[in-house]
């Protein structure tokens, strides 16, 4: 199982460094995804309601 040993060894060798610019970008995305949370929840609720209504209106076949 030489290949397995290689995977285990190599997996630890990838040098991951703290990256401020990446962290800033990710934090900014996170903030934007959460800033309109109530609006998103409302929108989803409305979408689910409309989907339910429409799904009862049409016969296919």
């Amino acid at each position, binding site marked *: 199982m030489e290949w397995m040993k*290689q*995977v*285990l*060894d*190599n*997996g630890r*060798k*990838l*040098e*991951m*460094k*703290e*990256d401020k610019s*990446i*962290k800033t*970008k*990710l*934090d*900014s*995305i*996170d903030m*934007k*995804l*959460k800033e309109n*949370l109530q609006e*998103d*929840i409302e929108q*989803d609720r409305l*979408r689910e309601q*409309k*989907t*339910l209504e*429409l*799904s*009862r*209106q*049409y*016969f*296919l*076949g």
Partner: protein
Amino acid sequence: MKDSNNTQIELSKWKELLSLQKRVGKDFLSDDALALLRNRLSVGVTYFMLEYPYVDKDFRSTYYSDFSKRHQKINRNSFRIHVFGENEEYYGFFTLRNTPPFNLGRGYLNPKALTVGQGHFLLTKFDAHILGKTFSVDAFPWMQQDANISRCAQVSIWAITRYYSEKYPVYAEHTIQQIFDLASSDTRKIPSKGLTIENISSIFSFMGFYPEIYFSEIVNDRKIFNEIIYIFIESGIPFVAGLRAKRHAIAITGHLKIEHEKDDTDCITPVSDLIKGYFSVDDNFLPYSIVGSGGKHSICDIDTVIVPLYEKMYMDVLTLLNRVLPEIEAAFLPHKKMYRRVFMTSSTSFKRFIFENILDEHYRSHLLLEQMPKFIWIVEYIAKDDYPNQVHSRFLFDATALKYAGIAMMISARVGDLFIHNGKSATLTNFQEPMYKNNLREAGYGVDEASSG
């Protein structure tokens, strides 16, 4: 007509359909059904093998539930017609039932048996046994509606669920009658009037799926709706498509080969924009009929998607497309001459792809050792100049993530030579990666083309 007291199975070889019709009679092969076959059977078909009597489990289920109660005698036996091509290659079979003019019963036909455009198909392996010998065929199930028990909606559900039950042991097999019985109705059920979209979704739920419904007017963006159609097919998930203006339902089961033309537009273009048509199971035509380019329906006719998902595919595709990706693209992809491919896959399949295709040993091992959820959403960006050769950036999202989880739903990403994980990054020495194609191939796509996806 020979019947059940006959101890010998009849097997005979036929070169052409007209003689076959003379042998079985118009009660089993009407002129309409014959015309359907003649229009679509491939020139590669060399002969048919007739088998009688054949007990077709799906027809027998409706026979005992309904057809046996009719005054006019309906034969409970079917004919099974095996189709062979060059060098005795087995192309599958279809059955003929005593329900004129809709005689074509359960069929498992490989695309090679029919005139079909080039493309990518969802197919799975079915076995047929003739005189103790087993023949295998890669196919997507198909049948005509009988107009009494089964209509297009039931046939679409049946085709999809038969594909699943044959492919994954977790799903039980249901006959067409059992599917019919699962729908509730406040008026009489026979003759069937079809199903409401809610009925279709409920039937999938009863059968162990976790369905979701998308309406074009609720998605409210035709481009995004078209991308949703593509995404589920690229994810290897066949679905029921509703054509509400035509009161029709079909199953979408693959897509035409992508004809890529030079595109210099400075924007992110979904790969769905390059797809001119999809393959379908439409009970009005033989299998793999095209929706879109040259087909009887256009892609815009599809205004409803009812997709049977697996339990752990929680994260909604609309959240990804409408909320997450615009932010990701604005932050990480300033140069926008890119194609976007979005699909879901199992982490097991993805790791298999990583094992075989990633050249940077450290990066490859890091991904292989990473704990991942059962299903992941993958978003690939391919530079328009490089399509379809290599992926510029790939983002992985947790399909089991909590709703409104924010950026926590992103597992990791590679943007060019930069690998990103948990706010940290690493520069890769070799980041040449092909597009992920395992979904279609993994699902047993016999006629899949290696060169495009």
